[in-house]
């Protein structure tokens, strides 16, 4: 894992007035005011991009493109609405397009499975196992991948994930449940209950 990773989990909430003020200044012709927006949101947008591709350079590039799209469409943001929701929707659209351009390299069935139960693993192995699961998310079919990414990015808030995707909450919940089933079947050692059940079918077969 790169040394740039930190243990900091949550960033402090951003006052909505700051964004509204910066947007007003940008729309009035002050380009430098956009810097405030980038400073405040670069962390979340880069982290969101990281979850979509799990590649440092790719995350930076995708986040940069998301900021540019936001810049171009700044006039379309309505000051009464939530700036972060608007920004995350733009970012999700950009990242989704990128994902479609570069399909997952490894199918879900080919993701290495840990050989022992979590309780028997060393810290190093445990870390590898966790990372394998996170990478397995990227191998899910498009329909299931994004709900998982955004649900956990938004700290397990279905409503915010649905808003970001512009999708009904019910659809997100259904896709999320299916995606988690696929992951649990693929990593039975993580879930003792699932491990007891036979792995009847592969991820692709489950989708039929």
């Amino acid at each position, binding site marked *: *894992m*790169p040394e*740039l*990773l*930190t*243990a*900091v*989990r949550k*960033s402090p909430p951003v006052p909505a007035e700051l964004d509204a003020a910066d947007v007003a200044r940008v729309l009035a012709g002050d*380009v*430098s005011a*956009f*810097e405030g927006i*980038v*400073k405040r949101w*670069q*962390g979340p947008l*880069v*982290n969101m991009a*990281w*979850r979509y591709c799990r590649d*440092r350079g790719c*995350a*930076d590039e995708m*986040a*940069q493109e998301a*900021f*540019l799209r936001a*810049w*171009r469409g700044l006039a379309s943001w309505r000051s009464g609405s939530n700036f972060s929701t608007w920004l995350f929707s733009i970012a999700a659209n950009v990242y989704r397009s990128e994902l479609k351009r570069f399909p997952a390299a490894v199918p879900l069935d080919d993701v290495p499975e840990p050989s022992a139960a*979590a309780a028997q693993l060393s810290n190093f192995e445990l870390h590898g196992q*966790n990372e394998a*699961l*996170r990478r397995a*998310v990227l191998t899910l079919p498009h329909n299931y991948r994004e709900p*998982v990414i955004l649900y*956990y990015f938004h*700290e*397990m*808030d*279905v*409503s915010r994930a649905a808003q970001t995707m512009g999708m009904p909450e019910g659809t997100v*919940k259904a896709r*999320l449940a299916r995606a*988690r089933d696929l*992951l*649990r079947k693929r*990593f039975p050692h*993580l*879930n003792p209950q699932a491990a007891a059940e036979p792995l009847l079918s592969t991820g692709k077969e489950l989708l039929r």
Partner: protein
Amino acid sequence: MKPDTQSAANYDAVDRILDAEDQIVPSSGFLASVMERVREEAIAPQPIPFPWKLAIPGMVLAAGTIGWLIYDLIRMAVAGDLQAAFEAPHLHAAQLNLLTPVTWIALALVLSLASWVFSRRLIRRSSLL
């Protein structure tokens, strides 16, 4: 974080691992890089808008011609003259003389000239020349 779609009992290892993702810090030059591209876009000239004012009369004329053609075809079909309409026209000798290759070449040159003049006028109006 407590999940809002499932009970705490269902908060299993998959949730725990995916929820406990570490954060990455944007690269040091990220902000500068974004602002550089934003400034480039800000000073770039606006894209040339499509000349609707000039195009609309042409479009109306074209639509009118097509409409008139369709109307005429339907009228002839109803009258039973459709086959006659598609038959080779009987031109007089004087008309045939006009349609010599030289005439066609001259017509093509005039059209090219008109198109070139028209495009230059359009560019001048956009203040690019």
